[in-house]
């Protein structure tokens, strides 16, 4: 008998825990050339803003060991195109949609949420908090728990109550658990972790930063231990809050790792670039490892690493 892969994100049930990460799957249409997107748990759409946005200049990407550094600057066509073109297409193909929103102020996030949560077929709204906050001297919303909470509460109060709101956090903040707690207290229903990690790589020939604008976001397997650590820490502090785990997922075994750390679902990002059929391969690998271990329900695995007994180690010294 094949294992029961169903999982819950607040009041939303997904057929399986393998999703795509924002900005790493286009609008779903591009990936649909390689597999049936209705087969995966959900597609997270690229963070959308109110207006079209041209993003950052090229070069936008550099390869790094087991990862990549990127700075695309949230290029996108704006919320009207998402609602008129991309979202209806995704729904028509039987895809489940997590819609990621990004803005320059709490008001903008709220307005986006209002327009999106009225659209049919939106399963979850994910708030990308890694946007520069113009009022915060160039800092990001997620750098300050109060600012982050303001955004979450603006989104929550403009979102239909049956659509869960997830706050997406970056790992490089002074107090991740404090930030996560602030987002939940602002009536966020769940957390997505982690966004890419700020970093830089210098072109060895020119001795200048390899991506335009200097700093970029590091993603891919290189950041997986950071991401797993973040999920573990936050799940320990907030065990009842659903988490979408992400950061360097490449195989079914990596999904297992995130589930054990406390994630309820797991998103695949950068590996989609390397392997456009990664999501369905990872899903197959996950089923195989569960079969091998005799696990019948995904739900039994979530947070396993926190339990004192069993195969996984239950001590937290690695995060100290």
């Amino acid at each position, binding site marked *: 008998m094949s294992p029961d892969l169903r999982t819950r994100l607040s009041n939303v049930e997904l057929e399986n825990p393998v999703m795509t990460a924002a900005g790493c799957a286009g609008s779903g249409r591009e990936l649909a050339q390689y597999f049936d997107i209705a087969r995966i748990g959900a597609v997270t759409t690229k963070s959308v803003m109110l207006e079209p946005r041209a993003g950052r200049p*090229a070069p936008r990407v550099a390869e790094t060991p087991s990862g990549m550094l990127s700075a695309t600057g949230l290029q996108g066509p704006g919320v009207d195109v998402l609602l008129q073109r991309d979202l209806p297409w995704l729904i028509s193909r039987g895809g489940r949609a997590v819609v990621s929103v990004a803005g320059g102020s709490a008001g903008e996030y709220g307005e986006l949420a209002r327009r999106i949560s009225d659209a049919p077929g939106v399963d979850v709204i994910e708030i990308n908090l890694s946007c520069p906050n113009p009022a915060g001297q160039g800092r990001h919303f997620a750098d300050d728990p109060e600012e982050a909470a303001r955004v979450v509460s603006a989104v929550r109060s403009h979102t239909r109550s049956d659509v869960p709101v997830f706050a997406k956090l970056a790992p490089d903040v002074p107090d991740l658990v404090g930030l996560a707690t602030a987002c939940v207290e602002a009536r966020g229903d769940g957390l997505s972790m982690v966004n890419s990690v700020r970093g830089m790589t210098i072109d060895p020939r020119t001795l200048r930063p390899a991506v335009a604008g200097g700093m970029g976001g590091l993603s891919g397997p290189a950041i997986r231990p950071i991401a797993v650590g973040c999920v573990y820490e936050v799940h320990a502090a907030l065990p009842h809050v659903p988490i979408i785990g992400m950061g360097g997922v490449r195989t079914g075994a990596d999904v297992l790792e995130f589930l054990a750390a406390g994630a309820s679902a797991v998103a695949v990002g950068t590996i989609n670039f390397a392997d456009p059929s990664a999501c369905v391969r990872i899903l197959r690998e996950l089923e195989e490892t569960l079969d091998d271990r005799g696990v019948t329900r995904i739900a039994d695995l979530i947070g396993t690493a926190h339990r004192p007994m069993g195969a996984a180690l239950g001590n937290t010294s690695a995060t100290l």
Partner: protein
Amino acid sequence: MNEQGPVQIRCPVLTVRRVDAYYAITVVAPGIAERFRAGQFVSVAVGGEQSSTLLRRPFAIHDVKPDYGGTVEFLFSVRGQGTAWLSERRSRDLLDIVGPLGRPFPLPRDPVNCVLAGGGSGAAPLFPLALSLRRRGCRVDFVLGAASADRVFSAITARRVAETATFTTDDGSFGVHGAVTDALGRVIEDARSDVVYSCGPMPMLREVTAVASAHGIPVQVAVEETMACGTGLCMTCVIPVVGEDGITRMVRTCMDGPVFRGERVRFDDVGTIPFDALGAPGWKAHHDSDVTDREAG
């Protein structure tokens, strides 16, 4: 999923050989060969399944043949890690390949005179294009340029398939001393060319476009921008291109290209976000003032 769209296949390598300064790899990939149209490319995973080198390498398809159910050949020069690894492949090794990717060169409806201008390894996609054009009864003339003689791509094949083939080298070691564009104008005039097709480095494409425009003929260019995915997912490969509606957009060269009308590419603004591009910081103001201007007029 899609009959016409790209596929991901594990392809056995048939041969790897040296061709002057390049390597040529032929793989057995029937699914890609049967879908392929000139101008499209493949992206190849390098370094093996657990490699720390994550990003695929894009290469223009140079040739497809019906042998072994359908083979695909691409040529490359060793630049860094990925191409060094590829150059060490042997027959029967497996390569994970996605393709064919991107928009092909549009072909003319009627038999017209076409000049094909390539620079360095950018000549690769022009060879299958030449065959398609010949099959449609078009006249084909080649202008191929490179840094030195050993970097001029498949000169013999060019001579065989084209009406004329002109070669240029930066160091004068082969053909005309100079750049492709130094010879292009003459060829357009002599061959009474109706259209230019070109592939090569961005500065060359800009010059080729200028020469074609000066002769009043259209030009199709295939561009090369750094790509993280090649499949339209990541938005890293963008350049500014003017749409039919006159609005500049940052478009994905992997999906919306690599082939564009030369006149539509804003070559001077590649590597920037032009202030009037859709969604650029100054765009809204610019756009609004456009509307006001029109209303005022």
